[in-house]
């Protein structure tokens, strides 16, 4: 599903970061673990095509990200990738269900109400689907964030520190949710974290 080779990235005026080569078969999950400051989020941005690498190649499925134009990259990311961000990002002027609907609309222009309801049900968001996102509790925001990463059934889901603010019990629940939803969508899940508690859930692990 994901394959990288000789990947490196340098921020302007910063040190060059080198990343180990990755190879993840389709449908399998991957945990990338490492302490703060080694470029975990940078790697996620590279893998999702939000940052162009300074060197090396990235393949997602059969597609070479480095060969795509900016617009093609936007389309590809929108259609095939889901991202669960470390900070929650929503459209604040829309309600919970509208945020989900918006995610479905681009770029395929789909509108699957059944899927929204089902996902809301499973993630415990059914009661607040017409609430503004600013009115949600932290836990609800976390779950909405997961929903937005998965609602469009992407081939691959990237999750950036999904458990960092959670207690042990919730940590397990959230990881399980992510895994379950990824199974249902037949998506590959790539979790990037410094959280050692997540380790026991994944067979494929890469340490940065």
């Amino acid at each position, binding site marked *: 599903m994901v394959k990288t080779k000789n990947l490196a990235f340098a921020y302007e005026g910063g040190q060059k970061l080198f990343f180990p080569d990755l190879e993840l078969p389709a449908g399998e999950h991957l945990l990338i673990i490492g302490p703060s400051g080694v470029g975990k989020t940078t790697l996620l941005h590279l893998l999702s095509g939000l940052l162009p690498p300074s060197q090396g190649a990235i393949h997602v499925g059969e597609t070479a990200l480095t060969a795509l134009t900016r*617009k093609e990259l936007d389309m590809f990311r929108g259609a095939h990738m889901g991202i669960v961000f470390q900070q929650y990002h929503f*459209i604040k002027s829309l309600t919970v269900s509208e945020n989900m*609907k918006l995610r479905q609309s681009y770029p395929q222009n789909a509108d699957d109400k059944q899927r929204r309801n089902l996902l809301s049900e499973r993630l415990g968001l059914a009661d607040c689907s017409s609430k503004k996102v600013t009115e949600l509790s932290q836990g609800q925001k976390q779950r909405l964030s997961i929903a937005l990463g998965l609602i469009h059934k992407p081939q691959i889901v990237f999750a950036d520190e999904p458990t960092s603010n959670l207690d042990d019990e919730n940590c397990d629940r959230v990881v399980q949710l992510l895994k379950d939803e990824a199974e249902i969508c037949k998506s590959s899940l790539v979790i990037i974290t410094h959280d050692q508690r997540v380790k026991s859930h994944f067979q494929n692990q890469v340490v940065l």
Partner: protein
Amino acid sequence: MKLSYLAFKNMVSKPLNLALSLMLLWLSISLVTFVFQLSEQLSGQLDKNIAPFDMVVGAKGSPLQLVLSSVLHIDVPTGNIPLSEAKKLQKHPFVKIAIPVSYGDNHKGFRILGTELGYLEQYNAELASGTLFQKSFEVVVGSSVAERLGMKLGDTFVGAHGLAEAGGELHEDRPYTVTGILQPTGTVIDQLLISNLESVWEAHEHGEEGTNDDAQKNSEHEHDDQGDHDHDDHDHDDESHEGHQHEETEHDHDAHDEEHDHNEDKEITSLLVKFKSPLGMVQLPRFINENTEMQAALPGYEVQRLTKLLGSGVQTINGIAFAILLVSALSIFISLLKTIRERRQELALLRTYGLSTRQLLGLALREGLFLALIGFVLGWILGRLGVLGVSQYLKKVYGYGLELRGPDIFEFYLLGLTLILTFIAALLASSSIFKLNVAKTLSDA
């Protein structure tokens, strides 16, 4: 989900920004459309009303006042002229039509005009019901008057002295009878009660002495000076005519018999003239102004002068309104700039959803254009409400109303201008979208 929906939601999510930009736009658009309608309709009304006549001959005074009073019926007359003088003009070879008018009374604020049937023809007035006046104290009623006063055929009323509604003495002994009601013409006729000349004369043959009404003060009342000694002289032949007497006819008064007296002493307020040839326009007014005690005024010229005067006012207001329009474009620019900065993370999020830079730009432009459209429509409606308000007022005071019209071609241009200004403002405000660093924006919380 459509981008337009998101743009709309984004727009209404900042009600204070929205209100400020909207109000500025609202104000400028309503001002421009209101003033435009007002000046358009005013000059349209004026042109329509003066169209039938090339020249007005009346007593000396302000030519504009003469036109306003005798043609448009919104001012007091300059005075009276002798019918005999007017009769001479009627026979002039350059004159095609010359219609005498005489007035000085009102019924509930609507003027009672004594004239000839030709007057109605000039305005293409047609009867809605009844018949035209045939003898004295029969009256045909303009459509607005009939509507406002609820007049029917056969109704009777008495004229009140003067042209204003309040305070005039009633001519109780000379009631008018409504014999006809006119169809709406969109001209001054709609506001008039029209009878023959004799009615107006006869109404004033009684009870004239005590009534020094404002409207007639500036004209007829030389009789204040001469009344005392005159009284004795002609009480016996015609006690009524003091009110209308003029100095010229004074001298040979005693020598005339009663019938002659009627023709010579009769006065009218003015004579409305249409020329046979353009030569008349060149020669007659100057001849009259230089050689007679009367004054000739050209309605076309006077109205042109008036609209020129009004025009500078209109231009000033338009200038102010366009300045506000620019400020409102500036306000849209600033508020979009602000919201785009505040929503940088949301825009970056949309990029990860697969929206292109162009689509994000479209989002911002839509937000601006929605605002412009809503502001314009609200402004347009407010402008029309203004027209409605002024129309009510004008109807009450001058008897002229304004129409509520649909969108004018000028207003479409204005809409185009507003949209272009907003488009430019929104485009400038969205330039940061091109430079959006998605990865960095999303990781800075």
